[in-house]
């Protein structure tokens, strides 16, 4: 503590030779090796890498938060105090007080049965000897500091009563409650919408300059890095492959892996390719069309009916990819689910392959579903964990009345080949596959019946960038080959730009703008679309700074 008082510029954290090992199947497996970095007050260090690269684990090791079968090696000094191998007593004093953590998912990191205020007061009282009244005043101060619109109301609220962005603000308020020297932000904005993400990033930037604390930002999003970081470390398979200032790494990536990583980030090209939508002949009928479609979640008990989608009008033609973009809660997933008949439509018109889906009977629905396929967002939960994947892929065939097991087997093998998975994977279980492989299985299942319409509900949002790029390539290739119509639901404008022929933007249950990709992304007409596009962080520090300044002026 005396060090900080005497020398304000002294590094807060000195890490040298930090490594993490896990004991797996009778041997030590290294999850991170030889990490060296120093962090001065007010600096933001980004640790970038794909899942499994050891970026989170190495940071948790500093706090001594490793699972039972893990061990930390090397040294990490917080203002001169060694943390690796320190006893629990010391670590407990450091945690929350001098090093604080902001977690990815504020809903699970906050305790749902206590109010926000109570949780902040609790954190304050553990580490300081403030009285209850003083702690209360301080907590309100903190909530104001994180720019919550109504601090008093937030203080008395339970986590579920706040929106995602507000919860993340409350989390941040709690973590800065003891003026920590170091903030570890583990994917702080991954669970948030782009516009909210932009706000939270602004907040983090303001706070760390005001508090002069250092931040370790763990993320896989290059845009976030470009927005916030001074220095960055790129990790791959536990190894630091590149480190330097953010500007250096973005401008002149030295290692091929970093180059690949940067290249894999789907970005909004400044000027898009020539409009690729072929001129449609007037005779071609849309394979999916909706007119003034209204979707309501019926009222249950005292909860009133909720109108999720209102007056949606859209057409998708065979062989076309239409992207539906919007923030969470905008109703885009609801439309996707209505198209496959998982949510009943309330009124209006929704026809798939010529059959009207509003008020459809169960028998007819079963028929229509033979020409429909859906790829779900989370490949971890969309495959039955107790079924070998071959059985999952073959199920639509069996249910469509295919009795001959040999025909099903053959088709399953063909489908696995189509999504570029080895045939002998068919007897594996979902947990034995990686996220990208699982999503391939999801695509194979959706295509089992050669559908006319494919609904892809955020198929890549749970995947790493490089995996995402490969899965998107695959999807695009198959789509070109088989020419089915695709309703592609996404919140990622970069991905949409890559894939879609046309884009529909949704906001609060309404479609606010429809047009070709380049029209919507390059020349947005609707103010909401403009806001959405400007909130996307660019994977380029300079361009991002320009944009930020522009935004704050405007």
């Amino acid at each position: 503590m005396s060090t900080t008082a005497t020398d304000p510029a002294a590094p807060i954290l000195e890490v040298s030779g930090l490594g993490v090992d896990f004991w797996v199947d009778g041997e030590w497996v290294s999850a991170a090796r030889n990490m060296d970095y120093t962090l001065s007050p007010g600096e933001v260090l980004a640790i970038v890498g794909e899942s499994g690269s050891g970026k989170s684990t190495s940071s948790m090791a500093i706090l001594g938060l490793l699972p039972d079968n893990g061990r930390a090696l090397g040294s990490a000094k917080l203002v001169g105090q060694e943390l690796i191998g320190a006893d629990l007593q010391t670590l407990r004093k450091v945690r929350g007080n001098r090093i604080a953590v902001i977690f990815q998912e504020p809903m699970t990191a906050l305790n749902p049965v206590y109010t926000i205020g109570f949780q902040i007061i609790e954190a304050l009282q553990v580490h300081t000897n403030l009285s209850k009244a003083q702690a209360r005043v301080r907590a309100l101060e903190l909530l104001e500091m994180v720019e919550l619109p109504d601090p008093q109301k937030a203080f008395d609220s339970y986590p579920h009563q706040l929106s995602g962005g507000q919860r993340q603000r409350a989390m941040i308020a709690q973590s800065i409650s003891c003026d920590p020297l170091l903030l570890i932000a583990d994917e702080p904005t991954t669970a948030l919408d782009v516009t909210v993400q932009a706000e939270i990033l602004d907040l983090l930037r303001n706070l760390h300059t005001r508090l002069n604390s250092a931040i370790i930002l763990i993320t896989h999003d290059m845009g976030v890095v470009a927005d916030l970081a001074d220095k960055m470390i790129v990790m791959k398979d536990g190894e630091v492959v590149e480190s330097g200032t953010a500007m250096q790494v973005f401008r002149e990536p030295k290692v091929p892996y970093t180059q690949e990583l940067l290249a894999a980030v789907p970005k909004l090209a400044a000027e898009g390719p020539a409009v690729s939508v072929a001129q449609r002949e007037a005779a071609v009928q849309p394979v999916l069309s909706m007119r003034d479609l209204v979707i309501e979640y019926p009222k249950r008990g005292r909860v009133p009916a909720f109108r999720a989608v209102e007056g949606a009008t859209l057409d998708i033609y065979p062989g076309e990819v239409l992207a539906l973009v919007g923030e969470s809660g905008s109703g885009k997933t609801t439309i996707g689910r209505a198209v496959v008949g998982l949510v009943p439509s309330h009124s209006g018109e929704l026809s798939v392959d010529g059959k009207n889906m509003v008020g459809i009977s169960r028998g007819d629905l079963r028929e229509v579903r033979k020409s429909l396929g859906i790829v779900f967002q989370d490949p971890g939960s969309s495959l039955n964990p107790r079924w070998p994947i071959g059985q999952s892929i073959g199920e639509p065939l069996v249910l469509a009345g295919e009795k001959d097991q040999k025909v099903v087997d053959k088709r399953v093998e063909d489908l696995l080949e189509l999504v570029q998975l080895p045939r002998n994977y068919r007897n594996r279980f979902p947990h034995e596959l990686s996220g990208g492989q699982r999503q391939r299985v999801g695509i194979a299942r959706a295509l089992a019946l050669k559908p006319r319409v494919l609904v892809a509900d955020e198929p890549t949002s749970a995947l790493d960038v490089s995996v995402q790029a490969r899965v998107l390539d695959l999807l695009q290739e198959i789509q070109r080959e088989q020419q089915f119509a695709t309703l592609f639901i996404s919140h990622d404008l970069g991905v949409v730009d890559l894939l879609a022929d046309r884009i529909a933007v949704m906001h609060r249950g309404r479609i606010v703008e429809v047009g070709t990709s380049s029209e919507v992304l390059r020349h947005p007409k609707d103010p909401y679309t403009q806001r959405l596009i400007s909130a996307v962080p660019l994977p380029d520090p300079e361009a991002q700074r320009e944009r930020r300044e522009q935004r704050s002026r405007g």
Partner: protein
Amino acid sequence: MTNTKPTADAAANEMTIEQRETAGLSQGTIVRRRFLHHRGAVVSLGVLIFITLFAFSSVGTVVGGSGRLVVDPDTGRQVVDGIRLAGWWWADWYTNYPIVNGGSPTLTLFPFHIGEHPFGQDTLGKDVFARVMRGTQQSLTVTVIVGVLSTIIGILVGAISGYFRRWADQLLMRFTDVIIIIPLLVLGAVLGRTIGGNAILLAILLGLIAWPGLARLVRAEFLSLREREFVDAARVAGASDARIIFRHILPNAVGVIIVNTTLLMSAAILLETSLSFLGFGIKSPDVSLGQIITEYQEAFKTRPWLFWWPGLIIVSIALTINFIGDGLRDAFDPRQKRALTRKARALASATVASTSSRDVS
């Protein structure tokens, strides 16, 4: 030791399955294979089958009839009412024989000798071996019927209310509440006289009451599983409700069901014992294991062998059922083999401790 071996075997087996690149395996095939590779479960299944066969074949059994003693008009001896299927053991469980060897067991291991009454005799001269075998039959019958019946009802009620929710859930759960509040012993007292010591009827009665706990657990499990996306995926593929419930969700709920069912089956033995103790369960001249123990409780110091065998068999039945349940649960859960064994974990933490202490110094 026993822990590590079967998992290693299973892993090795899994490898060969994959390498063989066989045609697709259904879930059923995989579950069967995995179960057969679970050594504890297979041995237990063998033991249970052996106990069952031994119990039924040794003293034979009685089919139908009231189970009371009647006098056979031809021979003038007392026999059990009903069709008596004879076994290979010479004695039966209701006749009083002349006391041999002071009633002590005639079974000796060195030199091996079975004798007339290997498990001994009680004060009236009844053959304890025959009584234990008959008791085992009755207790097994109760256990199996209670287990099967309450599992079926529990799964159906829980699955339907958890899957369909709304009014079906309301209706079934209120019905479950009604069943839960029925005091079992009072019901046993009322119906015990009518049933008159028939093990099968008693078991059906218990099975009809014992399911609410399981139904609640299954319902909770279904409520969470039905929201998973694989259920939606199946629905889009065109699966019917029944298929989703039984083929998709149920295998995922198997862990909870098996733990509960094995507990329930073990509890059924004890429940039958307490009913017998109060005079409402299986009644003399018929026997159950629980009844033997309670009947002879006064003789614990003087004739301990009256307890050894029934006790041993109750424990074996409960243990084997638990092991089989374990094996089934592991077989249904494809993740099981990845678990860290306790030995490796201990080793890991020991190494962590030593390395971290070295780091500090």
